[in-house]
């Protein structure tokens, strides 16, 4: 019986070979390079001839004056983004799903994917304009309603909000597309059955639609959580300034400023390794939690 089963599974093994090999060569083998996080690495001297320094690089990293502040900022911003990047696209997908008019649907779908194509260099320029305390649109509206203008990009209280909101705005189109595709995968028969059972629009949403996309939501959440220490460098670099280091400086921008990228390979690899390890732990935790809560394995 076992032999037969193995024989039946053989094609499955074969199917995996190309993927396993490519990942081995281009993802895992280069990971040998992670050992430079434990060395005082000099390129050219190679991975095995540079001096070993054990955990020194990590100690230096964690001991940096701004490290706690930076980690907090990174987590805060990333967590908020992860949360909103689930909620907003799901809501949008659900709303779009209610629309019958195909053309309107397609139009909106196209529109919301557009911001993805703009680089942060461009978007930062636009944001600086509309958020300007003196001439910006948003503050004009605030002033109109009798409020005091807010210096969004220069105020530590507001900066993270701007960062979170603008990134969600830029990328929610991506998530919406995924959830829409998931929605189309729901068996229409289930809706019919629900209708027959007397469920109205709202009940159908609750009992058919939402459970139908839950697997995808759980999956996207689990996958995203692994990236929690990686708040978007490009965006923050173009938007921040010394005025908002306190709330806006994240791990990647700190590393960049310290010039680690170009010269201090060991330190930046140590930071990267640290980030990956945290990501792994969080991914495992959310995987197990999802399984416990929903009985479903995200992947």
């Amino acid at each position, binding site marked *: 019986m076992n032999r037969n089963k193995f024989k*039946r*599974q053989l*094609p*499955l093994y074969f*199917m*995996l070979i*190309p*993927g*396993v090999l490519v*990942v081995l*060569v*281009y*993802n895992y*083998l*280069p*990971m*040998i*390079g*992670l050992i430079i996080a434990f060395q005082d690495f000099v390129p050219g001297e190679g991975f095995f001839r540079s001096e070993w320094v054990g955990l020194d690089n990590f100690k230096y990293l964690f001991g940096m004056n701004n490290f706690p502040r930076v980690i907090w900022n990174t987590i805060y911003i990333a967590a908020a983004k992860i949360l909103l990047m689930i909620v907003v696209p799901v809501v*949008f997908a659900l*709303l779009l799903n*209610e629309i019958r008019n195909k053309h309107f*649907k*397609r*139009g*909106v*779908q*196209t*529109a*919301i994917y*557009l911001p993805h*194509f*703009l680089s942060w260099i*461009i978007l930062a320029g*636009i944001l600086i*304009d509309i958020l300007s305390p003196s001439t910006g649109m948003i503050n004009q509206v605030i002033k109109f309603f009798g409020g005091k203008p807010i210096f969004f990009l220069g105020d530590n209280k507001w900066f993270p909000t701007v960062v979170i909101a603008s990134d969600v*705005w830029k990328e929610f189109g*991506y998530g919406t*597309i*995924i959830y*829409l*595709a998931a929605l*189309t*995968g729901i*068996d*229409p*028969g289930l*809706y019919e059955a629900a209708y027959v059972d007397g469920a*109205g*629009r709202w009940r*159908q949403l609750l009992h058919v639609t939402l459970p139908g996309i839950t*697997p995808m939501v759980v*999956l996207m959440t689990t996958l995203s959580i*692994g990236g929690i220490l990686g708040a978007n460098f490009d965006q923050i670099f173009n938007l921040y300034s010394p005025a908002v280091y306190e709330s806006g400086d994240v791990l990647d921008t700190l590393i960049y400023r310290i010039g680690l990228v170009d010269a201090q*390979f060991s330190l930046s*690899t140590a930071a*990267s390794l640290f980030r990956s390890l945290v*990501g792994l732990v969080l*991914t495992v935790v959310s995987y197990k939690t999802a399984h416990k809560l929903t009985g479903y394995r995200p*992947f």
Partner: protein
Amino acid sequence: MHYQKTIAGSIANALIYFVLILGALSCVLPLINVLAISFSSSVPATAGQVKLLPVGFTVNAYQYVLEKKEFVEALWVSVERVVLGLTINTVFTVITAYPLSKTKSRFQPRNVFMWYFVGAMLFSGGLIPTYLMVSATGLMGSIFSLIIPGALPIWNMIILINFFRELPGEIEEAALIDGAGHFTALTKIYVPLSKPALATLALFTIVGHWNNWFDALIYINRPENYPLQTYLQTVLTKQDYSVAATISSIGNLSDRTIKAAQIIIGSIPIFMVYPFLQKYFTQGIVMGSVKG
């Protein structure tokens, strides 16, 4: 969805339309701004006077970018990259997702392999080790250096796994009873049923390969082999206002209109492909094959 029309429903509909239109509009306006800048004269653009309509209408910026033969060459390189990349990525994604979508009982080692791939997504050796590997495998300078290292887009593959898992289990049973092996089941049944997922992933792959400009600057040694976005990066002389910049290079700084034209040109092909793929997003699963 089946439901009767009610007043509450109509109000809900109106609200839904309102939110969607607002959302879509907010997304479109910045691009309209960039479009307007691309068609404006450089002085008003530099002075920040262009909002939603071009000021001093001109196609100078487009002429500047499009009239070079390097542009057309780079365009073809990009097309080649996207076609090769899409094909390879899709094949890898499909054949790797299929076994991993089986349950543990049907395929014992699936969890091991699954975490093998997840691990690759979470950890990276960094730029230098990856560069050395690309060099060691002889891909340096070839268009395949832009495709093979990322041949399996793991995130996409996981999404496809979930799509496969959502398909009713009876499909596999039915196929196997009919004497079909896994390869046949995959190609004749699973793939056709996954069109929305595949179309979605195809879109992301195309966009990814089309927009990626950094890897070519590192792995491609000659400008004539650059894909389009990489080439466009070099059309803009580095915005170096530092003291080290020479007088003439400052004079040569490309103005905002050219940058804007670059973005528009770089995005057009995607907008041409998008509607084509869109119709697959909204196709439902054909359930007849199972019931039969």
